[in-house]
């Protein structure tokens, strides 16, 4: 640097460093009005972080996509023969929408694991010590997980079609069904972020991984609630997973949507309300927890 050079103060100017390479100095703050643009850019960068992770580990992605397909095939081929659907109908047509719901619900684990891993490894700390929008960390995670789940749903639709599932309703109704499934996933996303921030250690995720099974089984995802004992049946009918499962069956025109109980008759309404209720709890709780990391 020569003496005539104005000293770079508080700018992003690139002075030639001692080695001749451009030294990068203090980045400028976002200009007024562009803060939103920076937030978008940060969020997209964080999303790309996840996407490039998939690109490097396609095998892992395939395993994650194959797991629900395997579950679907096991239920349809091994158990399906002895299952009857209340109100009549083909078990495969009943099962496939239920498996869609389970696939969305189990996305909770993935979100939770990723968040707690970043927290434990100090990645969250590093991002928080940088001049980026802290919420971009959560947004990037959210966008990537939703893309992941949408891809998972697409694969499951394909697998469902292969074992004889089809939708009998209208196209708009089918779109509405997909919308309800993704809404459930969105609620699970925020529950996952919240729980991940609370536990902070990936090992504890195992406990949740075990607990999701009884929750999934205490619903109409795999079997009609009609055959369950009275008290269990009430719980199962009110389970948010049942609401989405029954609503999706109704919209796809699949068997198993009929029923006389209130939650069954109002399944579509509940399939909207339940995720919204979960979101109204998990979203503020996750945000508060994230802000409290500096306590």
């Amino acid at each position: 640097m020569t003496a005539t050079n104005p000293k770079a103060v508080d700018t992003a100017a690139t002075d030639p460093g001692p080695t001749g390479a451009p030294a990068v100095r203090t980045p400028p703050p976002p200009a007024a009005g562009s803060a939103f643009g920076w937030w978008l850019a940060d969020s997209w960068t964080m999303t790309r972080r996840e996407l490039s992770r998939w690109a490097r580990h396609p095998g892992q992605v395939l395993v994650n996509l194959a797991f629900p397909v395997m579950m679907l095939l096991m239920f349809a081929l091994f158990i399906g023969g002895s299952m009857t659907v209340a109100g009549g109908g083909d078990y495969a047509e009943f099962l496939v929408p239920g498996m869609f719901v389970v696939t969305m619900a189990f996305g909770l684990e993935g979100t939770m694991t990723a968040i707690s891993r970043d927290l434990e490894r100090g990645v969250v700390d590093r991002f928080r010590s940088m001049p980026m929008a802290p919420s971009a960390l959560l947004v990037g995670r959210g966008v990537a997980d939703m893309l992941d789940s949408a891809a998972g749903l697409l694969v499951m639709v394909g697998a469902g079609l292969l074992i004889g599932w089809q939708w009998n309703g209208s196209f708009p109704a089918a779109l509405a069904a997909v919308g309800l499934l993704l809404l459930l996933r969105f609620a699970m996303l925020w529950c996952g972020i919240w729980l991940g921030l609370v536990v902070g250690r990936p090992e504890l995720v195992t406990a949740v991984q075990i607990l999701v099974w009884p929750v999934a089984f205490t619903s109409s995802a795999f079997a009609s609630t009609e055959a369950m004992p009275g008290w269990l049946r009430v719980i199962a009918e009110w389970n948010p997973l049942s609401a989405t499962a029954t609503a999706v069956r109704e919209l796809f025109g699949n068997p198993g949507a009929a029923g006389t109980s209130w939650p069954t008759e109002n399944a579509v309404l509940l399939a909207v309300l339940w995720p919204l209720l979960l979101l109204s709890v998990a979203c503020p709780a996750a945000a508060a927890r994230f802000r409290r990391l500096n306590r």
Partner: protein
Amino acid sequence: MNGNGPAIRAQGLRRTYGSTRALDGLDMTVARGSVHAVLGPNGSGKTTLVRTLATLLRVREGRAEVAGFDVTDRPRDVRRRIGLLGQHAAVDEELSGRQNLELFGRLYHLGGRRAAARADELLERFGIADTGRRAVGTYSGGMRRRLDLAASLIVEPEVLFLDEPTTGLDPRGRTEVWESVRSLVGGGTTVLLTTQYLEEADQLADRISVLDHGRVIAEGTSDQLKAELGGDRIDVVVRDAGQLAGVAELLAGITGDAAGVETDTDTRRISAPVADRMSALNRLVRSLHDHGVEAEDVSVRRPTLDEVFMHLTGDMKEEVPQ
């Protein structure tokens, strides 16, 4: 830079976790462009201090300024000027070293092309260019740490925090990281590093703050801290352990400070602080000769930082007072 004040100024920082005082009225000033070591055992408050200065923990009591900005009022201004190397390598193991650095470059809004160029430049500078495209999971501990260090230097920070940068590394990895840290000095970056290794503070730092139970119990250059223990020390190793007591008495007579004489029976070594090293050495050698004591070794040396640390923290259990 903002003003010409110190790079770091902490005043009366206090923070408790339950009944544990992590920071107990900590004061510290770090001059710009210097390397400052915070030395202390586990639980002395080192990490809490770094996390507070790096805006990760809210200041509960006291004040802290980094790069001229108050960490409570202007955290974003602070974040634009610091780099943080935490205790864990905060890089993505599934991604390559280059991808990690590009990611951080984008978060500093360098733009895709400059982020890529900066990533290559840093990989080169830290000697990990040839492994830049491999997943970080396959890196050695030292390489991972250097990548981590590179990530905190995407934009040359005014203040760089290194929280126990070599903990868990083998000697080779430690040397690698030391060399990398030394290469930063001279670029104008202020470095605050925490360590439990006295040797590390001695090797890297201009000044050392010794931390114990959340307070600074001593501060100064390595030489000043050593001088606090009474400057030079004289060591005598005798052949026959039976002569230890006699030699200790001789040494006390020469230094005039019986309390300062330390005897280690296992190594048959007697050690004492001396004011005038050459005169003490002369008198001791003559005295040993006069009394017919056979010494295996007589030497004058500076105290080690271990001795300084034990002295300061009052942890003298290992030594047998005479």
